């Protein structure tokens, strides 16, 4: 049972290390997939926005983390 719990915890940990980055990526993907078409944004523009948004999320996250130097992960 303990081994199973460890495996499950590790499995979740595979995808989520920083919850704000994971949540941001999921929300942004949903916006690009289902929100923007409602506003009439085209398929190629949504592709560009998806890519730019994900890069912005990653950059914001690592730069923010760099301001908290001295901690261990």
């Amino acid at each position, binding site marked *: 049972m303990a081994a199973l719990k460890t495996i499950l915890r590790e499995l979740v940990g595979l995808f989520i290390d920083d919850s704000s*980055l994971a949540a941001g*990526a999921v929300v942004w993907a949903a916006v690009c997939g289902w929100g923007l078409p409602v506003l009439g944004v*085209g398929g190629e523009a949504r*592709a560009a926005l998806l890519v730019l948004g*994900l*890069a912005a999320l990653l950059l914001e996250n*690592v730069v923010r983390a760099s301001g908290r130097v001295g901690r261990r992960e």
Partner: protein
Amino acid sequence: MISWAHALPSLTAAFLASLVEFVEALTVVLAVGTVRGWRPALFGTGLALTSLAVLVLALGPALTQIPLDYVQLGVGLLLLLFGLRWLRKAILRAAGVIEFHDEAATYAGETALLKSYGAARNRRWDAVAIDTSFKIVMLEGIEVVFIVIAVGAAGGLLVPAGIGAGAALLVVVLLGLVLHRPLAKVPENALKFAVGVLLAAFGTFWLGEGVGVDWPGADWSLLGLVAWFLLVALGAVRLCRARRSAALAVGD
């Protein structure tokens, strides 16, 4: 006909990502074998590999029953999260914000822990050794299975991805047999950086396919995504170094 634009990145991503996972598993199995004996270490490893094979055989065919759109969406999202997680950590390590992973330290820690349990009551059945090697191979193996499915399933590229993972296993097993010590000199962060870029690009591509965006250049945009994430990650390292220096200067 398999497109090289997909097959080569799939094979490379699966090889590099699996290499990192197998190196981590090898470190612990080596510690178990050295401290508690090779028979239980290899028994635990074999048990985990058999369990993984059963898991793959049981769940693999189910994957083909799911409509492709859902596979692309699900696999793309998981792959993106997985890739961003690796890329984030690799960027922060490269920028000196967090410490590097040290296989030699892991080996030393694992060896000390295994010694602290004392000798097994039954020399033929060392539960501590079997449990330790089973858990690490199972954990890292599940990650490898996921990586192979993730980089291969959505594009019908399970074979190249499987070949990549198999090649990584072969390399690590051979190096382990020859060296008999942890592969501490493997540039793990550089590997994670490269794999993070590849997985983030794959994840974005399949997620985009799943939610119905139109990729300019169709499948070839995958190469553009790889270049984009590489550029962003390299830029992020520079930004993080500057930010870290500024934060340290304020701290002084």
